[in-house]
């Protein structure tokens, strides 16, 4: 297998930033995995630094390979509501609502 040919140039993120990113992504990083995860992410971002070699001032961004526009359809009822089938695999429901722990705490409601 070929070796790692892109050398890391600078650290983009530190452990504090990693914790912020993880929080945005709703992930926990264990304390003993912080250094290794930060290192991995910095290595990947170092790879991405190669992109700064190119001047892209006059190039349009490409979001979609076929340059399609969003297709519109007639505003007609199609598929019927299948809430029971789709909620049959939910972790917790009551009266067609998805149950989660209490969001606004209320001492009289255990959630």
């Amino acid at each position, binding site marked *: 297998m070929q070796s790692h040919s892109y050398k890391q140039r600078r650290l983009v*993120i530190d452990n504090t930033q990693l914790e912020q*990113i993880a929080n945005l992504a709703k*992930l926990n990083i264990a304390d003993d995995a912080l250094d290794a995860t930060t290192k991995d*992410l910095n290595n990947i971002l170092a790879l991405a630094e190669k992109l*700064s070699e190119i001047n892209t001032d006059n190039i349009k961004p*490409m979001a979609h*390979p*076929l340059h399609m526009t969003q297709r519109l359809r007639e505003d007609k009822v199609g598929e019927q509501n299948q809430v029971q089938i789709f909620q049959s695999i939910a972790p*917790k429901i009551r009266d067609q609502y998805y149950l*989660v722990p209490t969001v606004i705490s209320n001492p009289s409601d255990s959630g």
Partner: protein
Amino acid sequence: MVMHTKTIAELSAGLRAGDFSCVELTKHYLNRIHNSDLNAFISVTDDLALRQARAADDKIAKGEGGILVGIPYAHKDIFCSTGVKTSAASKMLDNFISPYDATVSHKLNQANLVMLGKTNMDEFAMGSTTESSYYGKTHNPWDRKKIPGGSSGGSAVAVAAGLSAFATGTDTGGSIRQPASLCGITGLKPTYGRVSRYGMIAYASSLDQAGPMTKTAQDAAIVLNVMAGFDKKDSTSATQAVPDYTKNLNNSIQGLTIGLPKEFFSTDLDSGVASKIMAAIKEFEALGVSVKEISLPNSTYAIPTYYIIAPCECSSNLSRMDGVRFGYRCDNPKDLQDLYLRSRTEGFGEEVKRRIMIGTFALSAGYYDAYYLKAQKIRHSISDDFKTAFGKVDIIIGPVSPTTAWDLGSIKDPVTMYLSDIYTLSANLAGLPSMSIPAGFSQNLPVGLQLIGNYWSEERLLNTAHKFQMQTDFHQKTPQRSEAMA
């Protein structure tokens, strides 16, 4: 010739002639799957397969249906199948029994095929080795110590080891072509939008595309005929008419011009792989094809471009995995934050988390322009390079993977792993159709040849691949160990 070495066309003829029934054929494959030690499948759907086989036998007895009636196949565990676990090889979806069919699943059911089971893959299709599956790694049938490639590794192994007549795969950055190459089978990633993505668990939506993994180009054409087509349930599905992909397979390819991108023959390319690619080019020249060197200058930026765009899209797509509506939920969450955090932290594997975090970072305030927008612009340049190239040549040819299959567990560094995708990513970024076909062996391991065509040129790609397979026998080789079984 035993049943599991036959092509789809041969199996279909055998079923129609009454040489064997679909139930017999299905039991033969199920027996091989249960006796296999390659871990190619996450779920084996014996009861469903036998039910479908009996229905197919009835159809065949009445002389009804098309060429694919009763053909047993392996379905990548990324396509939703009603009533069957659809896990994407993740703990997050280990309990997910799909309440609906993906359009690809629906089309294969409508054509009366027999689903043998759901194949192993890298978790959420993020990987090149099928080692990141929650259900353990899959082994390469040519050498059990080697990776099968990924992410559609289980599908490639199912076909290579004679555990199914064909398999489905998905390809976001090479996930059909690279395992096809490393396992010595034929794999086709169609033009973006050719096959519906509805019900296909999303990784990177502007790159994901499903396609067939088969023994031959002819089989790929037969399967693509059923998989392809417009789907109103997929807003990026293309409206282009679907031709009969089998119709022009035998057309002469004399006069065709093949382009060899100089960037695909760099020093990173293993010499054993390079020599097989060069030998394949000689075969094409013998078929009356002219060869021209071309350049895809921006393809050298494909790796960083892809590894920004794909993680950005995955961080958005996988935000739906939150432990609320389906999938894994942590035990006894103390509040909503805890539910999100622990469900996702416990449910996702390491590589998935890594890509979600890269995407989250690259899309975050202050970094969007420098990473995501920049990568989208370079994606445009990569696509423009192909436009220029296809003004001069009909098909682009090169290697699929810089090396043959490497040892299981031998690459631990994520970036080193990403670098192995160098030759496959550009076609995804541009949205172009591309194939891998067997081109020989280097140190007893398969080498795949990559063919890239212009948009909607699947017919020409399949024709070119078929003519090559009429001249060569690499696609007929089977791993010794699979021959010894059942």
